[in-house]
């Protein structure tokens, strides 16, 4: 269901921006966090969708790069043709805190695959060491209130220099 102008304005009113997604989160467990906006989302008829992603991994095609991808699947609710802003933060743990190495955002249709996802890539340096990496994925359906829940992928220890 597409939103009218009034409901769009209402959605804007309820939408909660999260400027620094989990950058300081210290938990290693896969997790998400929800803040305000869920009631607005329920009222908007946003329906059901999935936030999806892969664990941070070495690129299979570009030497010395690590990648993380995020995408979404529409299950019910929003009409066909809706895009979502999918944001992926690729993070590393340093000094007990998660720091963002790179952030990437793209407006994509639902589905996944190379043309319907956001990719965050980091080029490893020649500094020796193994570090813990993870990604944070936010899916914000354009024209609908954001429920502000983000997927944090499982921590991966990789020999990728910083």
């Amino acid at each position, binding site marked *: 269901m597409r939103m009218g102008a009034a409901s769009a304005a209402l959605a804007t009113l309820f939408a909660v921006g999260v400027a620094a997604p989990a950058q300081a989160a210290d938990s*290693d467990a*896969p*997790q*998400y966090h*929800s803040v305000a*906006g*869920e*009631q*607005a*989302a*329920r*009222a*908007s008829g*946003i*329906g*059901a*969708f*999935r*936030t*999806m*992603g*892969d*664990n941070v*991994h*070495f*690129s*299979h*095609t*570009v*030497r*010395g790069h690590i*990648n993380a991808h995020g995408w979404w699947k529409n299950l019910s609710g929003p009409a066909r043709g809706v895009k979502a802003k999918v944001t992926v933060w690729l993070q590393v743990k340093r000094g007990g805190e998660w720091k963002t190495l790179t952030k990437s955002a793209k407006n994509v*249709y639902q*589905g*996944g*695959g*190379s*043309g*319907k996802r956001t*990719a965050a890539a980091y080029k*490893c340096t*020649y*500094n*020796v*060491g*193994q570090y*813990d990496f993870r990604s944070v*994925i936010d899916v914000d359906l354009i024209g609908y209130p954001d*429920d502000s*829940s983000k*997927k944090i*992928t*499982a*921590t*991966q*220890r*990789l*020999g*990728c*220099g910083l």
Partner: protein
Amino acid sequence: MPDEYSSGTACFSFRECLSVFPPTVVVGLHGTLQLPPWFDRVVEREDDAEGSVADELLFLAVDRAGSYGWRTVSGLLHEDGEVTAEHEPTAWAHEEVGGDWTQDGAVRQLAWLGAGVRTHPPRPGIPVRPIALVLSETLARVGTVTFTGLHALLPLHATERDTAFHQIELAPWFGLTDPDVRYEVVVTVSCRPGEGGVDPGDAAALSAAVREKTSGAVDVLAPTAEGVLAGLDLDLSRTVHTEGMREVIRFGCVTREWSPDMAVWLVESTAEALRETGRPAPVVVTASLASGPSRDS
């Protein structure tokens, strides 16, 4: 702590770090693919879409895996504004998928999929067969495939033998076929020097072990030199995870059928035999068609 799909191996140089990937499996299917006339009418892409149409459509293999109950990606389920479920990979951790569908009639790597494998209990084994299955199904969905070979990067060093299933248990399955049909198939094993993998001296024992596991459903021939039996022309230097590997063992087989199913059996039987040599290391095993079919008179 890193999760169960990651490794914690130390490395002391940049090159060494790059070679110490977390346990990753890659399965690739090779052959020719003919796209149907209706293909362009049903496949829509955005002008700024990244990657090839093959890379995009092969992602359907991820969805197909999910339909079998194999969880391979991370996710949240949002329903009416609430997160009602969270999922993690349990079968394998999807990394990347791609393929080459150039329509020139040449044999190409039509589909490949790379994934992290589970290294903590309960270990479900290296998922070569399920990955080959979803890739095969995806290719069959988009066109007519002539299958010529399969390769698999197997992290034998990071996984243990499957005590719940042994490849010889599939011999009756593959015995159910026309006994007069013959295909010549080539099996190769490649690894990096210095990683503790097999060497040419293991060839006779390896082929004998595969002969035992295939239990009459396959005639395993003596090992041969590279180039004697033509098979898959796999360029190991093209992909990051196989760089530095070279072929060390090659032997021929005579089978009664040729399919991805048979190729997986040969690859997994060889992998099981490799474990028994006591030299677990990352290896690439291929099974590819040399000739056939022919019929015994």
